[in-house]
Each structure stands twice: as C-alpha cells, then as structure tokens.
C-alpha cells in the first residue's frame, strides 16, 4: 500500500478521486431526478394530439424526437442542423472514448478512432453556430442566461482540448486508459503527463458535475414529458361507426 501511494503523486490521486466522486455524483444525481419525475403524479392526460394510441406508437414518437429532433426540424432549420452536427458529433466522439475502457482496442472501435477528428470538427462547428445564433439573434439573446453561454463555451473548450490531444500533443492513450479504468474500479493510477490532458479532464469533470443539476438533463427529460409520452386513450373508446375519409 505504501509503495502504491508513493507511485501516485498527490495531484494524480486528487484527479483520480475527483473522477470517481464526480462520476458517482452524476449517476446518483441523474437517478434522483429520474425518480423525482417518475414519482410525481400526472393527474390529467395532456398528450399533444394527434397522439399515438398504442405504447408502440409512443415509443416511435419519442424516438423521432430523440433521434431526429423532429419538432426542432419543424421549428427552425438552422438550429436543427447545428444541433444535429453537435449531438451526433459528440455521440461519435463519445463512442471513440469507449476505447479507454479496454486494455487492447476492440477492432469495432477502430473506425471511430480514425474518424473522430472529423466528428469533433462537426461537433465544434455545430456548437459555434449555436453560440453565434444565441449572441446574434435578439430573441435568443433575450432568453439566454450566463449559464446558457457557459454550457456552450464549456463544450467548445472540451472539444478544442480534445482535438488538441489528438492532433497537436498526442498522449499516451494506454496510460489514459489505465487512469480511467483505475478510477472507475477504485484502484487509482497516475494520469500520463500533459497539461492539455489535465485541462481536458478537468473540463469534462466540470461538465459531469453540472449534468444532473442543469438543462443538460433534457435528453432524459424528454422521455418524461407528458405531452409526448402519453397516449390518446379516448380514441379507442369512441363510437363504433367508422367515419370514412
């Protein structure tokens, strides 16, 4: 034990501990919100009609919103496109990060590693458009609070530092994997050297920290939105005669 601690500098230990604690916080915090939403009664059915009549239909409706951002596509094409770039860029990059959970990279992740630079670019592009429109359009400026800008700036900084790690100052990916796996299995390891790496990690931790207490929860929140997740149960019990078209 003594030797193990010696090998870890205090700073490394702190980073590892922070990762463990903040990941736990994000998970527990999110679970708490889910519990809070799920346990609040929905006294009157308020689906936005025309609404699906079956549970299957509800799943399709929710998927269309979550996967395609359907309502946003109807509302505003620029925002929609920027959101698609950002969210799918981020998803792609996140999948790439799964490599750090494995000591040797699974071959299925190779394309994600190869293309992740482009994905990060798409993500950054989307984020910049989202930021610019928030600053330029008077309506969006009016509804924005400092946290709305900071969320975007945080994500942009994470993306930029990530790109820097890939292109400019490559890191010891194996070492990063060990650090990450260590923190998640409570066997903390040192983080490989690199200032940008530390910056990237700290920013990500900040994002995880605000996740359960901010609007970032919207992704899960949609599923609980009664306007989208409730069925039109009255339709089934309507009169027998089928109106023709």
């Amino acid at each position, binding site marked *: 034990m003594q030797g193990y601690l010696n090998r870890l500098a205090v700073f490394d230990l702190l980073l590892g501990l922070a990762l463990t604690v903040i990941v736990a916080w994000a998970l527990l915090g999110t679970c708490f919100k889910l519990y*809070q*939403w799920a346990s*609040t*009664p*929905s*006294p*009157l*059915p*308020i*689906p*936005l*009609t*025309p609404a699906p009549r079956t549970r299957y239909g509800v799943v399709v409706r929710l998927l269309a*919103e979550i996967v395609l*951002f*359907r*309502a*946003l596509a*109807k*509302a*505003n094409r620029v*925002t929609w496109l920027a*959101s698609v770039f950002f969210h799918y860029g981020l998803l792609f990059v996140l999948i790439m990060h799964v490599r750090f959970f494995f000591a040797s990279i699974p071959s299925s992740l190779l394309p994600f590693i190869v293309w992740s630079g482009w994905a990060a670019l798409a993500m950054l592009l989307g984020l910049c458009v989202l930021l610019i*429109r*928030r600053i330029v*359009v*008077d*309506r*969006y400026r*009016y*509804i*924005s609070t*400092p*946290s*709305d800008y*900071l969320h975007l700036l945080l994500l942009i900084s994470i993306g930029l530092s990530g790109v820097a790690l890939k292109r400019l100052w490559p890191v010891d990916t194996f070492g990063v994997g060990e650090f990450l796996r260590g923190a998640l299995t409570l066997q903390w390891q040192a983080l490989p050297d690199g200032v940008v790496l530390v910056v990237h990690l700290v920013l990500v931790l900040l994002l995880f920290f*605000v996740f359960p*207490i901010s*609007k970032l*929860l*919207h992704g899960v*929140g*949609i599923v*609980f*939105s*009664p*306007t*989208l997740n409730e069925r*039109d149960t*009255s*339709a089934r*019990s*309507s*009169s*027998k*005669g*089928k*109106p*023709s*078209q």
Partner: protein
Amino acid sequence: MKLSNDNTVVDTPQVVGRYRVIPLIQEGASAASQTAKATADIQESLGLPGTLVDDWHDKAIARLGQLLKARRGLRVFMDTCTKCGACTDKCHYFLGTHDPKNMPVARQDLLRSVYRRYFTWAGRLFPWLVGARNLDKSLLQDWYTYFHQCSECRRCTVFCPKGIDTSEVTMAGREVLASIGLGQQYSQEIIGKVHSIGNNLGMKPRALADVLQSLEEDILEDTGVAVRLPLDDEGADMLVVTPSADFFAEPHVDGLIGYAKVLHQAGIRWTFSSEASEAANFALFTGQHDHMRDIALRIRHAAMGLGVKRIVIGECGHAWRVAYSFLDTLVGPMEFLSPEHPRAEHICEVTHQLLTQGIIQLDPSRNADVVVTYHDSCNVARGAGMGDIDGGQFKIPRALLAASVPKLVDMSADTTGQATFCCGGGGGLLTDDLMDVRIKGALPRAQALQAVVSSDQVTHLVAICAICKTQLTSVLPHHNLSDVQVTSLHHLVGDALVLT
C-alpha cells in the same frame, strides 16, 4: 392538405402574409394590457382570498411547491428547457405584440426563474448564473400580465423539441395567483356563475326555455318543419351540452339550429339540460382542477338524471378537450352510457356518422356561392381527437364542410391542422379589457385568411368553437377582413341539410 370530394379538389395556397417575418423584440410592448382582477366577493365565493394576502410571497412559493409535487408536466417542463429558442417565434401573441415576454420560453421563464431560485441548488447558490430571481412585486406583476396574455393554445408545444407545454405553466401561474388573491375577474366570475346558475351567462332555466321555444318558432317559419329544441326531456337518448353562447348570440345560434335540424332529421330523441346548460369549463383556463372537476360533474349528474345513453358536446373547443381527454379521469367511468357510445361525442362526429351511414343528406347547392375556409381551433386540434381515425379532428369537420358547400379552401398548412394559429381570444382572454392583445394576437390567423381571400375569394370562415367565433367576429374587422363571415359549422350543415 389535400381534400377531395365530388365538388372540389383544393390545393394549399402559398401564404404571402407578413407573419413569416419574425419581428424584432420590443421590451414592454404589451405590458400595459391588463385584465381586471377579480373582485373580493367573486374570489371569496370560490373559496379564495379576496385581495392580495399579506404573506403573498410565502404563500405563492408554498403553492408553487405543491403544484410541482402534484403535476409531473410542470416539474419536467421547469427542468428540461434548454433555451434553444425554437418556440420563440411560434406564439401569435409575440408575433402580434412583439413583446419578448410573450415568447413562450420567456413566459415560462417568469415562473422558471422563481422555480430555480427557491427549488434548485444552482438557483439558491448562484442565482445570477442561471437566471434565478426572487419573487418580488414587479415579477408578480409580470406574472399577472403575461400569464393573461397566453391563450393556452399549445402551438408552442408542437415546435418544442422537449415537448414543453407552456399552457401548463400558464395554468400553474394563474392558479398560484388566484390562491394569493389575484384571480382574473373574467374567468373567475364565469366559474362562479356556472356553479350557481349552470352556465357562463347566468341564464336561468326559465329564460332558456323561452329562448328555445322562440327558436323552434323561427325554424318552423323558415322551413315549414317542426324541429324541436327540447329542454330537460327525461327519457331522451342523447344529452347535448353546448356553450351557452349558442343559445342566443350570432353566429353561434345558427349552429345550434343546425344541430337541432340534424338530430331531427335523424329521428334521434335528444335534449338539452338546464342543469348542464353550459359546455364550457373555464377552470381549465385557470388551472383549478377542483373546479374543473365540479363543473364536469354537472354533466355527469345531468346525464344520469335524464337517463340518457349518449352525451354530445356542441361546438366548443376547450369543452371538447375537457370532454374528450379529461372527462373519464375527472368524473368517470361513464358506465351508464351505451356501449356503442362509451364516451362523450362531438356533434361533428355524430353528424358525420349520420352522413356516412346515409341517414341524412347534404346538398351543397343550397349554399351556393359560399366559399369556405376552416379554422382549426387549438383545443380541438392539439388537445383532443375526433372519431376513430388519426387526425379525425382535422378530417371530420372538413368532410362535413366539403359535403355542405360548393367550395372549401384550406389556409396555408403552417397555420392549420396541428400547427393552427389560435384565434387570439382563447384561454380566458375573451374579455374587452384585453381587446388590444386580442386584436394583435389574431394577426397570424388574419394574414393566413387574407391570403385565401385574395386567392380564392373566400366568403366564410368556419370554426367549431364559441370563443373562436366570438373573437374572430370582433377582431377580423380590425384586420380589414370584415367581409368574411364567421360562421358555425352546423349553420352551413343545417342549411345544406335535406330536411323533411
């Protein structure tokens, strides 16, 4: 939308209206439009404080806390908005007034800023960071102003990627306001009248009977056919509950005559009820679920007392939402209804069924030279369904019109169907003290209408909602559309009906 029938094939015209131009925001533009606060006696008759209570701040926060625990929608909507802005240009009141607080998300933020301040860690610790605000007098004033410049039409919900329903936020806001002594005179007075007399207008049973009798005489004179308008007919099969405007005011009453003609022709034994002589349920607007239930209960009670097997709702938008979506939850199950018609039906469903079954005939040539466009009412479009088909609430009224008039034209698709624009007077705003907001709020609808008037010489605008009809009749002249006649759907159906 493409509608085909024997007479017409109609393509959607392109709207050239100015509503596609999104206005620049103009802070405070409609701050001065105020609706009168409920008087002490009205508030007290509903069990609410007569004037603003001394500890209004604590009471308001406590009430909001209760609502957050009682309504999942409210809680989720408070949490999930990303301020993406998709809804900002979707509200007719913003498009008409340019006041940024009439942007749906800004309206929600009036409440959300307080939610964040008092109910979230981020807002308690860093209010300036997340736009959290103390509830002070000026914010309270904004609540009263802007929660009464929302018609709870839910158009913004259609475009919100998180499905956030601003009407739920508005209802919660009004509910809190009323609970600390700041109810709205117009809605609360009406709720009081429904409780004490049975309808919004405060029309006594005796007066109602007289009105119905004189209408029977009018129909006989006009058509030579003795069409009855029965009241409290025990043993009738069908109870018709309709907005009380139908009993006396133009253009509503012609619709009422239309229902009577259709039901007469079909040989259905039906009746009105003096106990439930009102379909409207303004407690939906004020967010007071207890009152909503009590008002709905009258319908159940009247139906059971009269021993009817069917309940039919007349042309009223929000009444139809309450009947279709809420009635079972509020006062159900309605096991006394016939198994063939186990829920409340819309008069359009009834007429449409009779038409498709060949029980009644409609002859469009009787409405010669009438060119109709149909205004989808928000509560019907986004809060209810109709018939057994998807989108029946859009198709059935249009099918009835197509069979009743020579030409039916649709307004631009982004102003009809699920995306329909509110008439500008719904949700408890149909009061003279909000006339300015009502006129401005009708702008997008008026622009879409103007387009079809120019392209297809539309003569009639049809709606199936008493509020829409009243509102549009009074505001269209302000948009240079006084030549368009606002009409009940069943007026045209009644005129086209082959009556024997």
